[in-house]
């Protein structure tokens, strides 16, 4: 626990320059962009159907946040994302473990992995809809497909990156295969696995959204489609902003988890 508290303390002591000038400038830039945007829209320089003003968009955002249906749709998208992420991650980690521990399997599957990795997964969306229908399944499968490879590849690389010295050490201490795996290979691979998971989670959200674009009863992607269809562009923009915030939160969450679990890479 020591390492974590030390590094946390380090984070807790920023330079005590009251408010940092960069932050002020960033804020100023933000305000400038918003004002420019509002002017563009207020004076009809850009049609409101193309780009509604920021005030309208922010208003719609709160309107959406107040509507109960928003949360049920958000729930569905999050469920698809997280279910796809969880299943995809479990599949990929388990498969990576199997493939690394059976070298011949790795060699036989390798050409398939290279080819499947190259498949643009979003192009599979129509096929998944055909196979799995318009319910949640197709979106979850999409999320799985799109987030399988980052974690899989990283787990394989991580498990293979155990250095020779450590292996020799374990060998010299007469370690069993199981101990070698549990106490050396797996922890060594953890930082790599997390790097894969980090990429995956955002990909899973993208997978769910693309799946919903192809047709869905529920979900944020469906809402974007619906509002777009009804020409309520302010709501479309509001949804995209909300979606971005969700993506950011998911990313920050997994990064936090990474720091907590793989604490020993902190100081690198």
């Amino acid at each position, binding site marked *: 626990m*020591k390492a974590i508290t030390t590094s946390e303390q380090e984070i807790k002591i920023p330079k005590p320059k009251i408010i940092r000038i960069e932050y002020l400038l960033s804020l100023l830039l933000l305000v400038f962009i918003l004002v420019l945007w509002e002017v563009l829209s207020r004076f009809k320089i850009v049609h409101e159907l193309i780009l509604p003003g920021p005030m309208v968009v922010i208003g719609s955002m709160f309107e959406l946040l107040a509507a109960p249906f928003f949360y049920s749709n958000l729930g569905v998208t999050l469920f698809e994302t997280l279910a796809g992420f969880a299943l995809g991650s479990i599949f990929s980690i388990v498969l990576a473990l199997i493939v690394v521990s059976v070298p011949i399997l790795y060699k036989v599957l390798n050409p398939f992995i290279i080819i499947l990795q190259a498949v643009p997964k979003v192009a599979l969306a129509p096929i998944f809809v055909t196979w799995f229908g318009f319910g949640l399944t197709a979106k979850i499968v999409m999320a799985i497909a799109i987030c399988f490879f980052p974690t899989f590849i990283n787990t394989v690389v991580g498990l293979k990156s155990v250095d020779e010295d450590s292996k*020799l050490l374990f060998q010299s*201490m007469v370690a069993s295969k199981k101990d070698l795996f549990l*106490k050396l290979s797996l922890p060594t691979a953890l930082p790599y696995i997390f790097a894969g998971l980090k990429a995956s989670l955002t990909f899973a959200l993208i997978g769910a959204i693309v799946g919903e674009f192809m047709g869905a009863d529920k979900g944020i992607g469906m809402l974007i489609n619906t509002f777009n269809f009804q020409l309520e562009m302010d709501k479309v923009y509001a949804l995209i902003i909300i979606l971005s915030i969700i993506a950011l939160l998911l990313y920050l969450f997994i990064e936090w988890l990474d720091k907590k679990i793989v604490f*020993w890479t902190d100081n690198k």
Partner: protein
Amino acid sequence: MVNEILKSSDEVSTNQSQITITNLYKTFERDGKEKEVLRDINLNFKKGEFISLLGPSGCGKSTLLKLIGGLITKSTGSIQIDSQEVKDPISKVGFMFQKAVLLPWRTVEQNLILPIELAKGNIAEAKLRIKDLLSLVGLEGYEHYYPNELSGGMQQRISLARTLMTNPDILLLDEPFGALDEFTRENLNFSLMDIAEKSGKTVVLVTHSISEAVLMSDRIIVMGINPGHILEDMKIDFQKPRTDKIIATEKYAQYMLHIRDLLGVGR
């Protein structure tokens, strides 16, 4: 105190050979080609002896050490420890590498427990010894630190303590302090000499430093390259315990110049 923690298994250090190497050859295969790395090695190490392997890079010192430790298999010849042919790593041998290779996700204590865990030994009992071992290597109170909170020298001390956890009869050390600066290294060397002497362990040390070898060893095996072979098996005859006062002796200078001559160092 050393004697309490690291009890010698026999009471007196006998004079019989503990490690016996006869007609040892080792060949590696790379890119379909055979490469002879060790040729016709014959050695007898007695119990309690402090032996240094000295030689240029690539002469096979590490290879020889790994063979003795059972980490790799020989091509032909025989290696026996206490009259048993070495096939796999055995627990009476402790190995230590140039890098500390501590597991960064384990505290010092957990790292020290590792060899006991792997050997399915009694962990509770082992924990009792940690405090003494840490004070032996001069790091009392560091139980709950993580490796990346320690300096390189401290990490190597922990690595040494870990090697001692299972109280092995034989220590095989592959440039254990090679990555450290010279001052830290010498201090650790003297600690190591202390531990070895007082517990009567057999030590085989791989080193690049002639002065270090002369200062510490009972015997120096000087090796040549292409393929690795023994140039000379020298007895270093100073009384124990050693101090660095021997630097000022005629004998020391003679040993130094002789080995430099053998290895073709300097001018």
